[in-house]
């Protein structure tokens, strides 16, 4: 029994790491930036942390801090040009950014290990550490959501002109969202590095981008619960489908289509909407 749990522990670890990355994606979307750069920031954080440990032999805490800071730095740097762009243009620019990071990574073999990846990273992060960081990230997102920043992000996402006319600085808030996103991605990338023994450049490419985006879309992009739930479903579901091996990708694809079409706001947001509508209806009935 404990064997079975232990066997699925890597899956739980994966969940904790991906929750962090999902929040990184969530926060920029929430602030109205269609950035997909989380995968790149995670790669930057992971490789920084990895290199700190492997090449410099530094303490993991320092590596994690460095990963967080470089992730954040890269995000702030990227936010400057991105502020000039809108919507899908931002999406494509960030995808280009990911491509650039990827090919530079493969190219600078002496530092990053190139196509071979960065190996022999000491494993210093376990489930406990991951859990603590994932919990902290969840709390921070929840706090943001309830306060001033959450309201400002909401306004910017829905209508920039309105937000600006109400005194909300769009550049400042979007840069802030970016910094948070980059820091979260860098941190969880670093955790990944110290948890996985090895890094591979392609790990932080298009596939990760899609995976993370799917978490947020599936779960919902307006409440903190969304990424938590979306991530859980998308990590558990392929496991359940494993016996169907060959058809796993078909099932995954069909699920994406069905969910986005029938539960477009994501599972959590839709559920919350339904609850709210019911409350309104009940109130209306008691009035009339």
């Amino acid at each position, binding site marked *: 029994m404990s*064997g*079975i749990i*232990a*066997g*699925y*522990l*890597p*899956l739980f670890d*994966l969940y904790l790491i991906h929750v962090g990355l999902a929040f990184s994606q969530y926060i920029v979307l929430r602030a109205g930036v269609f950035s997909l750069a989380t995968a790149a920031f995670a790669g930057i954080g992971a490789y920084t942390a990895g290199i700190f440990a492997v090449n410099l032999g530094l303490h993991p805490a320092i590596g994690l801090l460095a990963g967080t800071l470089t992730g954040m730095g890269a995000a702030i740097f990227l936010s400057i040009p991105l502020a000039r762009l809108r919507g899908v243009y931002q999406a494509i620019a960030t995808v280009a950014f990911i491509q650039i990071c990827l090919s530079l990574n*493969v190219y600078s073999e002496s530092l990053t290990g*190139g*196509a*071979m*990846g960065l*190996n*022999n990273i000491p*494993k210093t992060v376990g489930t406990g550490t991951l859990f603590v960081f994932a919990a902290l990230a969840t709390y921070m997102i929840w706090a943001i959501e309830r306060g001033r920043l959450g309201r400002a992000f909401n306004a910017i996402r829905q209508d920039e002109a309105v937000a600006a006319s109400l005194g909300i600085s769009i550049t400042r808030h979007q840069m802030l969202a970016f910094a948070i996103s980059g820091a979260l991605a860098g941190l969880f990338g670093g955790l990944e590095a110290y948890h*996985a*023994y*090895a890094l*591979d450049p*392609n*790990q932080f490419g298009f596939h990760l981008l899609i995976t993370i985006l799917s978490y947020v879309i599936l779960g919902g992009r307006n409440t903190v619960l969304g990424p938590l739930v979306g991530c859980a479903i998308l990590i558990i579901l392929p496991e359940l489908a*494993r016996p169907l*091996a060959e058809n796993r*990708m078909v099932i995954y694809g069909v699920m994406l289509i069905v969910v986005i079409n029938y539960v477009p706001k994501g599972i959590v947001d839709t559920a919350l909407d339904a609850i709210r509508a019911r409350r309104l209806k009940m109130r209306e009935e008691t009035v009339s």
Partner: protein
Amino acid sequence: STTSTYAFVGEPLVNGMKLAADEISAADNWGGHNVEIIYQDNRSDKQEAIALITRMAQSENADIVVGPIATSEAMATGPVAVDLKIPMFTTATSPAVLEAGPYIFKSTETADAYMAPVGEHIVSLKPSNCFLVSIRDNEGYIRQRNVIRDILTGAGVEIVGDESILAADTDFTALSTKIVSNEPDCLFVTAPPEQAANIIIQARQAGLDGDTILAGDSGAGSQKLIDAGGSAVDGILFPASFVASASDSSKAFSEAYEAEFGKAPDLWAATGYTMMNTVANAIRNAGDDVNRESLREAMAATKDLPVVMGQGMLSFDENRIPSMGGIVMKLEDGKWVKP
């Protein structure tokens, strides 16, 4: 990995293993043990490979893991396997994977061993220069390129081009023009067979000289290269680890494989077949109590095991590096011959 990037290896590999397993079971040749084989797909993904190995070791109580395929995957899973004390038998080419610890075994000879004869053969043909093309997002190909490059430069052959491509590339018109404009005496391509064929076809269409020396890697010894390249790839030199017509046992294997899966076996099918046989041999030799430790020892002790690859015998040396013996082959009129 039966899906995604390394599917081209994974699929025939698993087929080869299944064929071997069926044959062994039919002959009741597991040394009296009841062997259960679980196939899992890591989708050419490192993290997935780690998760799977952990799960196999901890909840499925496996005694040996066959796989993963790529060096990059094996580099990642190696330390995990060593931590869990479970033998891991991978197809990774780089000897670096063995450094993780005594539980790691690899099925392929190192590039230095099997590519060297090809390099030396090229040198013996006395080209004055050579153009190299390799895949840059896979360590194995880079290593093969390095071996050839070092041998050629060592022998004073000028390298007029050293280009890299991605495993997903298909359009080589620009590359071809570049190759042709360098007028090389020799063109070495290390890439999966279809891609290698493609590069050569496109280079020919761009005007590559008919008597340019062509050379490739072990993949060039597969039927796929002939199917894909037709007459364009005629004359290519390659290292052979598996030639269907090499011996009676390899002929028998080829026929059985073709009967089962409807196509001729390639290098990887033969590798899978060989790996399963090696594991079965180790199980037979592990004694009554088959466990991870006894299996590891039995694996390491493998000597002169008859196989369908190379010169027909597989042994591990004290560093667990396998040797089967490779030879240079040449493709002539759609047939593999000794040059």
